[in-house]
């Protein structure tokens, strides 16, 4: 295992080394072998392990600042502490696991892959998500899944105000309480295919929960095309 110490190396050098695992920054990626690396002493640094593009495993020993694992492709990134705002933003594929809590905008606009937050996630978790799967073992803050387009947001705990506001086609599953739903977000029937999908996600996220205990939320699709009679809902 290779170790990169952020007290001894510049961020650029650490990211360049990690990005090189896939053939280098700007490379096509995918050519790297299954390597494991660790980043120690992150001390809340921003933009750690961003732009990775190879099936490598990276463990960040500690807590990170903004945008850890941003735009990840293929890599598995495990943060042992907590993550600052925008963790795994715009992730395309791979897996990111936060063992502590995550700040605002976790998984924002992410297109694919799996984001697991074993603690709580703050506001706007999954904002504008475009295909990612997010599993939060704890609670999530207000305005989560705002304008979420595609993918699945699974919450084992409670959800804050205005969940799924202006939702498009993303699916939301919540086991605990929902403080309030946002505009055009409604509770929907849990059918067998949803139970099956949820069970798969819970297993991938190492979450010990029964899919049947969850409720499903989705878009009512009433705001998809402008209607003056809905003006108050926009």
């Amino acid at each position, binding site marked *: 295992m290779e170790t990169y110490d952020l007290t001894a190396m510049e961020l650029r050098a650490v990211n360049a080394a990690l990005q090189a695992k896939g053939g280098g920054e700007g490379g096509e990626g995918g050519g790297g072998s299954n390597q494991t690396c660790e980043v120690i002493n992150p001390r809340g640094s921003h933009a750690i392990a961003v732009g990775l593009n190879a099936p490598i495993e990276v463990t960040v020993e500690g807590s990170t*600042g903004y945008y850890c694992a941003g735009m990840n492709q293929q890599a598995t990134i495990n943060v042992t502490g907590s993550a600052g705002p925008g963790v795994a933003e715009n992730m395309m594929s791979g897996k990111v696991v936060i063992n502590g809590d995550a700040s605002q905008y976790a998984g924002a606009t992410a297109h694919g892959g799996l984001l697991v937050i074993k603690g709580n996630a703050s506001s706007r978790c999954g904002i504008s998500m475009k295909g990612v799967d997010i599993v939060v073992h704890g609670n999530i803050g207000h305005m989560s899944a705002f*304008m979420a387009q595609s993918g699945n947001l699974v919450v084992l705990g409670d959800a804050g105000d205005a969940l799924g506001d202006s939702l498009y086609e993303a699916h939301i599953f919540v086991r605990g309480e929902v403080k309030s739903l946002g505009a055009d977000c409604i509770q929907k029937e849990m059918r067998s295919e949803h139970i099956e999908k949820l069970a798969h996600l819970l297993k991938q996220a190492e979450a010990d929960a029964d899919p049947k205990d969850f409720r499903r939320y989705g878009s009512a699709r009433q705001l998809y095309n402008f209607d003056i009679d809905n003006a108050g809902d926009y």
Partner: protein
Amino acid sequence: MDKTPGTHPVKPWTFDDYTNSYIRRAAATGIYDIRGGGAKRRVPHFDDLLFLGASMSRYPLEGYREKCETKVALGTRFAKNPIMLDIPITIAGMSFGALSGQAKEALGRGANAAGTSTTTGDGGMTIEERSHSNKLVYQYLPSRYGMNPDDLRKADAIEIVVGQGAKPGGGGMLLGQKISDRVAEMRTLPKGIDQRSACRHPDWTGPDDLEIKILELREITGWRVPIYVKIGGARPYFDTTLAIKAGADVVVLDGMQGGTAATQDVFIEHVGQPTLACIRPAVQALQDLDVHREVQLVLSGGIRTGADVAKALALGADAVSIGTAALIALGDNDPALEGEYQKLGTTAGAYDDWHEGQDPAGITTQDPKLAARLDPVAAGRRLANYLKVMTLEAQTIARACGKNHVLNLEPEDLCALTIEASAMAGVPLAGTNWIPGQTPESGKHD
């Protein structure tokens, strides 16, 4: 019949014919008017400035004989690979979705021939525009439609869009009529729905966050490409200052005449400042931070002629960007299509329902039959010609002012025709040494 003399019927200035038609339309539809383009109202603009030319105290350069350079480098502050342009005129961000694939290809072809860059828009980067643009700026927008790291690494520069002149503080809108299968797929949304683009970024708020976002983008792209920050003409001094402090290589400043694919008419006409009013505060911010020319300023919003280009550069911009003018060069609003414009209830020169996707010129549409009307090779050639004419015009003026590079033009080369333009541009009213808002000692705005 009563023959007592009477006065002519008078229509109120406050309730003129246009205003009344607006009220009737609103009452009939219950929906505000949405349209494309920029502000149509008359605002102080570059037409209100004149160059002084050479005289006894400075000598001109010989036209066609003495060199007048036009090359510009954008992104010299931090990027390993700045963008090198042959001319100081770039093509502004316009999306595939808002424009047809043929129009995007034509923009790329024209820009290539003239030695300049094009810019993507909301919806991501298409293969066609990457392959037809030698220098492509990739916009990083709040919606992040189509955003992915592979395209990010293919870009020659990244433009973080904070705002645009047509609607500072507003998001985007692409109505269902233009959401074809391909556009829907690129944006990860169902076909046929109205696509709202967020008005602010989903994962940062404020300049301190922006600094970290810029760091992330640089780390993902290895610090190779310039990072632009595009702002609408709202508070140009403070917005430019904050963009510089956040680490921008280039500030793109868009005044209210700058176009949009679609937004509310009330937004276009009533929010934001004219381009002319924005430039000097932005330049002042660059100068106050001692980075004028180190952080480049690209100005857009109503640039039409080589004279406009020269005036923008003289006031301190490093380059300009054109959108609406480029579309007109491609064939938008061509009087040759008058019959078809009339069928749409409008007239050539006034057509602005770009969001409806029925553009007879094949530019602002996703209808394959309409889009096929635009020949990208011929349209690209027209754009290249237009860009070259504007460059020649700017060179002509620069030589007349004794400058061997268009960037050597300066405010001292200008005077203003109106008090308003004088105050905004910070150049003397013609025939006087008076600049409203300035004292001779201050040298800058109060």
